[in-house]
């Protein structure tokens, strides 16, 4: 019985993709695979959203791509993080942390008390 899977909150897919690619150049299948591994199969990323997201990030200049020979003996499209992408990732990450801390604080507040 697989663990229950969550949908990604709006806008977080971009950050996760950037984060994964930051570890090193990777092709689309690799990114999907890694996302699943990293999130221990909790996060289910639909291909239907992953590829458009990759292309959007590439067109915005946050990712760059290159066709390179891969382990399968065929050429594959490898994505890597650009400098602009790294900056975007850092600022996204910081704002995500602030948000998640705030949400955590609220969730941690004892019930029944009105501040």
């Amino acid at each position, binding site marked *: 019985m697989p663990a229950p899977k969550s949908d990604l909150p709006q806008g977080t897919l971009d950050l996760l993709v950037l984060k994964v690619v930051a570890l090193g150049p990777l*092709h*689309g*299948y690799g990114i*999907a695979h890694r996302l699943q591994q990293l999130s221990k199969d909790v996060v289910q990323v*639909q*291909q*239907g959203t992953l*590829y*458009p*997201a990759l*292309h*959007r990030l*590439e*067109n915005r200049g946050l990712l760059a791509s290159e*066709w390179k020979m891969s382990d*399968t003996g*065929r*050429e*594959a*499209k490898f994505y890597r993080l650009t400098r602009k992408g790294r900056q975007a990732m850092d600022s996204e990450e910081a704002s995500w942390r602030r948000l998640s801390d705030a949400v955590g604080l609220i969730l941690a507040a004892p019930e029944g008390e009105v501040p």
Partner: protein
Amino acid sequence: MTWWHRLFNRDRLDSELDRELSDHIERQVADFVRGGMTESDARRRARLAFGGDVQITEACRDARGTRWVEDIVQDIRYSIRILLRSPAFALVAILSLALGIGANTAIFSIVNSLLLRSLPVRAPEQLVIVEGGSWTNPIWEQIRDHHAGLFGGAAAWGEDRFDLASGGVSDSVDGLWTSGNFFDVLGTPAILGRTFGPDDDRRGGGPAGPVAVICYKFWQRHYGGAADVIGRPLTINRVTFTVIGVTGPEFVGPIVGRSYDVAVPLGDEPLVRGKESFLDGRSTWWLDILLRMKPGQTIDQATLALRGAQPQIRQATLPGWDAQALKEYLGTPFVLQPAAGGSSQFRNQYREPLLIILAIVGLVLLIACANIANIMLARANARRHELGLRIALGASRWRIARQLLTESLLLSVLGAALGLVFAAWGSALLVAQLSTFRENVFLDISLDWRVMAFTAGVSIATALLFGMVPAFRAGRVEPNDALKEQSRTVSGERRMIGQPLVVVQVALSLVLVVAAGLFLRSFAALAMQNVGFDRDALLVVNLDVLKSGVEPADRPRLLEQVLAATAQVPGVARAGLSAIPPMSGMGWNNFVEVPGGAKVSQRDSVVWFNAVTPGWFATYGTTLVNGRDFTATDRKGAPAVVIVNQAFVTKFLPGANPLGRTLRQPSYGFGGNDQPVPTWQIVGVVANAAYRTPREPDPPTLYLPFDQSEMREAPFATLTVRSALDNPALLTKSVAAAIGTVNPRLALTFLPMTEQISGLVVRERLVAMLAGFFGGLALLLAAIGLYGITSYGVSRRRTEIGIRMALGADAAAVVRLVLSRAALLVGLGVVIGAALSLWASTFVASLLYGLTPRDPITLVGAAATLAAVGAFAAWLPARRAARIDPIEVLREG
């Protein structure tokens, strides 16, 4: 990769996307196989896990941000296919749009060049002109020498025709007398050589002698663009000048509508005119004065500055007039006018007609739009099935509407492109029509941003006009209805939106036909106006006596010899000399007093003058109604006599016997007050004749004997020849040769009288021609519109008509049925159009001659024309309806 790269490398991106996505699937398959699945199971699972690859592909394409452009391209390609499928419709639509847009562009490019464009000089907005027509050279010299510092600069010029021939028939070019700093103040440098400096403008010529600057076009035309033109001699009015510079191709002179050929300094004028120089003429008004304001100076400040200097300027340049005229001279304030667009008489003359024609072509385009809108509507109806299918397949209504609008835009853009070709050709043709014997009209009608913006705006507006309603209606197609709908209906026309359009068309065309009628009738009235003489056989020869080199005192003898020599030429029936050529636009007028005559105010006592030789009236065919013609004995020293016309008698001596009465030229005349007052005795009365223009067929006129008037020593005179041949122009060579034997240096300009008169009605002819052409076009378009809508109605009501006929209706009843509807549309259109015409025609009142703007004959005639054309246009489909075979129709169902 930038947006542009993504747009233009679409195919490569698509194939890469395919490879990328299949790579993903291959890897997934490999993973599954590694996990122990069979190849085919793995492939199926991988596909399932991947999801809809078409959607993913589309989503990735959307991410490129180029989708909207691709959609537009797709719309255009689809539109082209649709248009190619019905080439006849496309051709008709594009051609009628091309005519409409072309006509609008052509007229607008003339409006632009005449009314909107700035002179191609440095900072044209700083230029102002001293208003009030022309000024004397003493006034200009005052401003130049004492007051130019009040402004950024001051320059003057006078227009003239220069004769490049060394004798005989003139080789006239458009000349400018300019002040020395003229080109510097305007800021138009020479592209070859130099322009004038103040030294060149010294009286009698500067250190470089008589010099000339020529315009680019003249350089090309006369010298073939020779690089060594600088320093070459150029004979102007028999004096040799040296060419020192060529101005750039964009500068054609300070006057809009004219282009200069040769400019020479004012200081060289005495070399040409000798003792008759204008330079010290205090009442010779021939110069335009242009000021360049200092940076930051406003026109009000400049006017104030000039008015501050006015008392000095006026006081130092008093003409030799009587006290009252001088008081007026001193008191009239100088007025400045913006001159960024240069100066132009021509502009004032043509502003109104041009704007009227622009309105006319605008209406023609509207009528054409209505036609195309009608066809588009009919086609959209026929395409309901296709559109319904597209909507059912998921196309949005907006997308469908956009598709139809794209088709409209494509039509109008193609029309505009072709229209630009028509416009370039049409406007050049129009400008060529404007030139007359007196002036060569030059307008720069090249395309500039204004014309381009106008054409683009017009074509987009057109597309919206005829494409909006069909697009809107197509967007509302209900796919269910459209798909279920049978191809035929028994009910009458549903939502026939085309009908109001036809009413509008008929109404607008009536307005245009009325306009055409008014202008054509005005022109006809003017062209056939009785001018008081027989114009067909007359050849007018203008003599430039100055260039003969003969001293004024000897000129009467020279002219006598010229007249005698001309009379000997075979084919010359009669010949006579006059001071002023009639119908040339030139004039000589003065005050006159009739002791014991009718009381006439001073203002009204100005009459036209001319000086003529014995036999001049016979030459013109003007009847002598009373008394005698001049004779050879009416010379200097003999009693001063005069002949007047009937209008003169009616005005000054009503009911009296004019013969023997005395006329005087009162002391308040222009002649100055130190001369004795001239008095003349009336010896004859002639029939009325037009003097300056056919618009005034009977002005009071006074004729002096040529040999008694001071005009016999004037630097110009006019010889008129009555030809015994059909075409008076055939006499040109022989008359020129005869005069050449008398004096080879005399300059001659020949012109048949008919041409001279048609030169005076160029504006009316042009307006009548254009209004007539576009009125006809409007009529044609409206007829096509009515024909189209009626045929369409008949084809839609085929079944109904068939049933009616099967039930016993005969052919006449069917024709009546169809015609009655068309008659309703035409009738409604005519009523609306008549009301519109009554309102609109008051705007053209000033351009009409011999009829009122609400001329009932024109209005009724136009309405009848429209009714007749409408009846014919509707009768063709009605006849077709009557031939419908009911059996066949019923079998179809």
